[in-house]
């Protein structure tokens, strides 16, 4: 019998996991209260959810100056500023989503108690994935957020489009999860570990062969296949062409606040993991995976931008726009440099805030449920509601990358990272795609400002809270466009790079 003292026992440091613990705790509390007090209006649970997200945000912010060990819980969780940055972005998105959801569910009469618990669990999955330092943990977090989002997508199940969207999202999601899992297994087979930093160390070991005898030789070829399969899993989540087919259907079918939440949150979370896995674990293979990302980025930008033109439904148009944006972000990832990572982080923060507010305004224009979604319903919106019209115009200009908005700065940063990495043909494609994309953004602005409304539609009836929820992002869009240094200064510090990437933190 082995004495207990010799059992390997990883030290249990839960500090770096505190935001997730808070979120999951709040989620359980919401479920409990809902079970004990059925038939409540949801306002209380929404405030509770909001408080949980704020508390998680505080917990995440406190981690910014974490002085404990950098890898905790047996190397599963990284306590770095990279994860704190993304967690804060996701939590901001989630907080806005709570306000939007409460407004939507109350008006459409579709409120059921489990909604906020699902939202909290999805948020927990999203924040967890940003801190995952092991492929197992990445997969786990990916599934937590995906399962919650499948349910949320189909939350209005009486509406056929919603149920259909959830079904498609789920089937294709399962398909991509299989690929991801396959890649995980191959990575383990190639290197003998699932730890991200561990994979990198072993790969470096092989590429510079000074190994002692008796060590299992990792295989770079197999590792590249693993990287390809893991990449496909991420590409699905962030809607990279040709793995994007679910996006328009799911975004259009899901209840608008859910679309707002997942278009911003999923993309940020999955890109955070994508960047971490590729730059940390497969950093030694950077030159091998770059070309494929370049091709995918170009494809994504062109297909997303061109197909958005043909859309008459505003939600669907924004969905294609979000595909195109995945391509722009991928441009920075493809650069494979520390600068590229920083610029992708900037872009993601800017994009998340912009898209969540844009869908928020779409939701407010709908007034109740899923109405007024056609381009024609936006005629003269700026005159009917200068606040919604003006706010959406600013957000659209930002998405089109027109100064003085944050989208312009983000695009410049991403493009310059790619140019410096030598990918100027990719940037050429990106610029052309931006020109195409500008068309449908500006078309919507033209419709809002220069077309007469067909009927004097009812006022949007937004409340102070929803006004804040979409107004603050609009303000942030302009602020970051004029003073981008606010965010770039934060990102300039070397410790915001993922732990173990670019030689940092090892």
């Amino acid at each position: 019998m082995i004495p207990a003292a010799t059992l390997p026992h990883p030290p249990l440091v839960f500090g770096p996991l505190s935001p997730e613990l808070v979120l999951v705790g709040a989620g359980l509390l919401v479920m409990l209260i809902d079970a004990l007090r059925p038939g409540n209006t949801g306002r209380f649970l929404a405030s509770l959810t909001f408080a949980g997200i704020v508390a998680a945000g505080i917990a995440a912010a406190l981690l910014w100056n974490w002085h404990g060990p950098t890898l905790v819980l047996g190397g599963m969780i990284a306590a770095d500023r990279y994860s704190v940055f993304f967690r804060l972005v996701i939590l901001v998105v989630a907080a806005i989503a709570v306000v939007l959801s409460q407004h939507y569910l109350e008006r459409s009469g579709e409120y059921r108690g489990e909604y906020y618990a699902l939202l909290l669990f999805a948020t927990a999955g999203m924040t967890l994935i940003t801190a995952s330092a092991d492929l197992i943990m990445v997969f786990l977090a990916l599934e937590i957020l995906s399962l919650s989002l499948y349910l949320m997508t189909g939350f209005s199940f009486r509406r056929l489009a919603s149920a259909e969207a959830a079904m498609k999202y789920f089937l294709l999601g399962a398909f991509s999860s299989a690929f991801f899992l396959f890649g995980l297994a191959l990575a383990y087979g190639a290197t003998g570990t699932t730890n991200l930093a561990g994979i990198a160390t072993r790969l470096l070991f092989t590429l510079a062969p000074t190994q002692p005898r008796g060590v299992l030789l990792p295989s770079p070829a197999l590792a590249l296949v693993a990287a390809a399969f893991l990449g496909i899993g991420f590409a699905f989540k962030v809607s990279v062409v040709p793995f994007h087919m679910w996006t328009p259907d799911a975004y259009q079918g899901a209840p608008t606040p859910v679309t707002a939440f997942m278009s911003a949150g999923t993309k940020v979370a999955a890109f955070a993991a994508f960047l971490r896995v590729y730059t940390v674990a497969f950093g030694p293979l950077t030159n091998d995976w770059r070309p494929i990302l370049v091709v995918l980025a170009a494809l994504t930008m062109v297909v997303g931008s061109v197909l958005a033109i043909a859309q008459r439904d505003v939600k669907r148009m924004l969905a294609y726009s979000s595909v195109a944006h995945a391509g722009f972000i991928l441009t920075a990832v493809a650069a494979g440099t520390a600068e590229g990572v920083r610029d992708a982080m900037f872009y993601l923060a800017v994009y998340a805030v912009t898209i969540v507010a844009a869908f928020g305004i779409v939701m407010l224009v709908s007034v109740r449920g899923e109405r007024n979604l056609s381009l024609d319903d936006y005629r003269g919106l700026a005159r009917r509601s200068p606040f919604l019209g003006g706010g959406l115009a600013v957000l659209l200009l930002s998405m089109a990358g027109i100064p003085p908005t944050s989208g312009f700065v983000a695009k410049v940063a991403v493009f310059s990272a790619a140019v410096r990495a030598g990918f100027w043909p990719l940037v050429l494609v990106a610029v052309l795609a931006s020109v195409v994309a500008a068309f449908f953004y500006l078309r919507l602005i033209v419709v809002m400002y220069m077309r007469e409304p067909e009927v004097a539609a009812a006022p949007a009836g937004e409340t102070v809270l929803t006004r804040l929820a979409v107004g603050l992002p609009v303000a942030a869009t302009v602020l970051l466009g004029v003073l981008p240094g606010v965010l770039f200064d934060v990102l300039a510090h070397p410790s915001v790079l993922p732990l173990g990437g670019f030689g940092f933190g090892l």
Partner: protein
Amino acid sequence: MIALVPLFPLAAAAILLSTGRRWRGASAGWLASFAVAASFAVALAELSSLLSKAAPARHVITTLYRWVAVGGFSVDISFRADPLSSVMTLVVSGVGLLIFVYAIGYMRGDPRFPRFFAHMSLFVFFMLVLVTAENFLLLYVGWEGVGLCSYLLIGFWFERPSAAAAAKKAFVVTRIGDTAFLLGILLIWAKVHSLDFEVVFHQAPALAGGTVTAIALLLLGGAVGKSAQLPLSTWLPDAMEGPTPVSALIHAATMVTAGVYLVVRAHAIYAATSAGTEAVALVGLITALYGGLSAIAQDDIKRALAYSTMSQIGFMFFGAGIGAPSLAIFLLVTHAIYKALLFMGAGSVIHGLHDEQDMMKMGGMRRAMPLTGVLWIAGAWAISGIPPFAGFFSKDEIISAASLSGHTVMWGFALVGAVLTAVYAWRATFMTFFGETRVEREPHESPAVMTGPMTLLAIGALLAGLLGLKATGGVLVRFLQPVVGLPPQAGQGLSESGLTVISTVLALVGFVVAWFVYGSGRFDWVALRVRLAGLKRAGMSAFYLDDVYATVIGGPAKLAAAFTAFAIDLRIIDGIVTWMARGVGMAAVYGRRVQSGLVRTYALVFLVGVVGVLWYVAVKI
């Protein structure tokens, strides 16, 4: 602390722009005035804090924020407190405050009263940024900002086509200079890799001679545009379409002198290039004479003052060009005071005569408006350089400095300019306030809210000369010494007292000539106008400069524009774009067919992607 100075007017502008309609009556004007007063108070505090330091230590740089950092290019939002910026902030906020209070009376009853003060506050904000900026880019922001506000305020009564046209003209003409300025900034960046004043001025002497001259001339181009010097002078007289307080604040006291500030601020650059300084002096001197001659021929009281401003700023450039930047600033300060006073006086007359600006329809106004008359005369004494008023100390010192620094020929022409100044100032005085009345409607004296600020300015016009009194060693000049050095001292040419006597006598000659022709009643000046009609017309139109520009530049430019618009743009460029847009549209229509809505199609596309990726990996391995 210096960074606080521009903040108050910005806040006032933001409040008035967002909630303008809620401010009833004159309250918007008092809010804006209060904000400018707060800026003035902070500027005073800054001055006392500077004075408490030893002279060489009187410069404080406050960096608020790293504004842009792209690659190797970085610019901060940083402000500079030193004697020069301190003097400029005091002038802008001090004179600005009096003009704001005056404007409350002048603009009363205007339907866009709050908007007027919103734009005025925004102007003061940008002007304060301009004079406190610590780098060229921030200065340029202020520079463009005041240009924008100038545009908005010249065209404030945009219902009048002439006002809208004048606003556009001011914007376009100054834009030519601004482009030169921007090129200069880019050249500085290319050669020095910094836009901070500290760095640029420190390295300026080490640059190649041709580079420094190019930078100096490009900056001068910007200054010439903003300060309405030849050859970009034509916008200023038309700018008088704006409300009179605008003319007083923007087109007399502050914005138009920004060019002088720029040249003085960058004097380290000019000190490194004799060609640059000669160009500044020459531009200034020629404009001083040109403006003076044109001013004598004007009948519109505000246009006369506009040409006078052009001429006075010419003297400032002249001062900066002959190596006396501190004297240029001295003239800038005194000119801000007395020219604001003269504009307010003109505004008061115009107000009293129900928007009549033609001096031919005035005359004898001192009887109907005694207080305005007295205050105007104080301003006229000051501008004509007759002791003991301010202009005597400031302008004549520049003229003396020309002789002391060995510019004897230029000194001779500058003396002619001094005579012209006295002639046009007193011509306007006699035509407006003395002699037989030619008014068509009964005039009335202006309210206290207008005459009050004018009284304060008149006292300033009397006292500001003390700043340059030789007996006290020239307080202002000594204060500015750490920034721009001392003006030329006695040594060459005539003695200083001799020079003073000469210019004073000439100023008195100008006064006597004006009095004999327009004030004595012994001379039929109306007949003179008819006899010299050709000369009169030439002077009235400022020697046909506008017509020359319209023919030589405007005509060919319009032809070329028509050609590019209808031949090149419409047919070729637009044709390509249309063709490409159609292609993209077709691609979109066909592309969306793949999105069939069937999960099996989606999975198939997904699988195609997987095969593609794996194909790449297989080739790679």
